């Protein structure tokens, strides 16, 4: 699709939406949000870029293959559960490390649940983009 309006709008929307997805990701443990919805937003942003500028451009924006994102996410999810096991707690127990204050969103605390949320974010972004890339490129061939 070639539309000047869409391309101009996408140039503004895509970065904002990506930033917003990260915001939703980090606030997700205590407030509505989280890795899943954040990942969907991120995938949506990349797909919007793809619709405006063509899927090759979207692939370039993503830089890595969607499969790599999925792999990283699955590995991070698996490992986030292992961290508490090092402390003798059952698999997937939430352990929290240090927190530091941020200017806009209160205190950001690091811990294994955050890692798990990041993992979900990566997997959802990867799967979302993979699905749309596959569907879009399949459609172009046939």
């Amino acid at each position: 699709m070639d539309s000047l309006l869409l391309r101009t709008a996408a140039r503004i929307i895509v970065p904002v939406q990506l930033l917003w997805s990260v915001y939703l990701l980090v606030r997700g443990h205590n407030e509505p949000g989280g890795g899943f919805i954040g990942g969907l937003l991120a995938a949506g942003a990349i797909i919007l870029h793809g619709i405006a500028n063509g899927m090759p451009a979207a692939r370039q924006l993503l830089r890595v293959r969607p499969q790599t994102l999925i792999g990283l996410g699955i590995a991070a999810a698996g490992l986030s559960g292992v961290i508490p096991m090092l402390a003798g707690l059952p698999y997937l127990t939430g352990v929290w490390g240090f927190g530091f204050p941020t200017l806009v969103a209160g205190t950001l605390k690091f811990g294994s649940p955050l890692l798990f949320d990041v993992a979900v974010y990566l997997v959802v972004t990867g799967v979302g983009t993979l699905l749309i890339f596959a569907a879009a490129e399949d459609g172009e061939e046939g």
Partner: protein
Amino acid sequence: MKSALIFPILIPVLTAAACLLSGPNRTVQRAISMTGAALLFLAGIWLLREVHTAGIIVVQLGNWPAPFGITLVADYLAAVMVAVSGFVGFAVAIFALADVDAGRERFGFHPLYHVLLMGVCGAFLTGDLFNLFVWIEVMLMASFVLLALGGERAQIEGAVKYLTLNFIASGLFLTAIGIIYGATGTLNIADLAVRLRDESTAVPLAAAMLLLGAFGIKAGLFPLFFWLPASYHTPPVAVSAVFAGLLTKVGVYALIRVFTLIFTGMPEITHPLLIWLSVLTMITGVLGAAAQYEIRRVLSFHIISQIGYMTLGLGFFTVAAIGASVFYIIHHIIVKTNLFLIAGAIRYARGTNELKQLGGLYRDYPWLGVLFLIPALSLGGVPPLSGFFAKLALITAGLSLAQWVAVTVALAVGLLTLFSMTKIWAEAFWKAEPADAPPHPKKAVPVLMLIPICTMATVTVLIGIFPSVLLDFSNAAAAQIMNPQLYIDAVLRPTP
């Protein structure tokens, strides 16, 4: 060590992730995949040892106490299922190196294979009904893609049926979960056992029937089994072998779990029903096989008839009968996977699995004939192979309950199974090669195919020579299953 319980799930997750991350390099992916499969096998053995020394192992995920959090439980049954799955997963992974083509590997065969194994192990280990649903879905998602991967026309058509029926089964399962949660407010299997064990009212009965339908479809029970022979012969042999060995057993395992722990309040309704369904499953499966002339289709129909034996033990509902079921499941996973692998070797050698186009294999590959006869005769129940003792234990249990019809059918079906196996033997190995056979160069079967086939044949023979080891074990597993208080206490007892 409680962490033994985590590794059968964790190892496949990390292996799948590593395969995805390794990029398109085939050799690296294969190395990772093999390492992961080997580690999973070892983890299964370790878990079995831990359960043997420490009794039922329970992990409350996230340290949330049962029944609020998700619980993982390993008793004898779960542990042995994981160990056998690890064994079969490893063996088929070796076979796949020689069987799965480069295109499928590039499209993610290895990560999907490990996701499938993760789903299977997770389903065996979970102690929560909804979590069981999730693991089964993980397994099914991977199996859908593995089934359709490659996109040959027959594969797509098989996958449509497979997906539709399994989707409906999942929906029934979820419906049952909704009803159970509405009635009891819990989904932890041990907690449900406490609340519903002695109930004989309509609500648990409705839930039990829905679950029977759901797991019955997944296990391939009469009358909703037809998706299985329609799809299992279409993908690459390595895929159909692991499907044949493991996927239907998840359904059987789930049936054993819910009908020994939760729905035991109405034995006059549920267990005769299970017996009759099993009898009909055995008969239709074996008769269906008699009409087929494609090796993998014959074997697919035999999966169905053999599933009948396993659920028959559950229907008898005595320690000896359930012990026989457990024995049967272990024996059948190994034997059936091996038969599919041999079908794969035949396909490799001759380019077809159609009995009408095959022949003369015994002349060209005599040792393959011997390797085929071991699992084939074991499946038919010829002494002294593993299948004989499995059937013997089941039939003894049936006789002591005076279940004459079921026992007669079980014996007759055993005979017909033997007939089917001799049909494959006579058509593929013994008769002269037909003139219209497709041309094929004479080539040796790769060693990577022979290793798993020989190993599994050896295990079949070993079980036959030392049946008492496995028999004692499966009876111990059955004793544990039939004493649900052990399971309930292990899960609900607050952790020190």
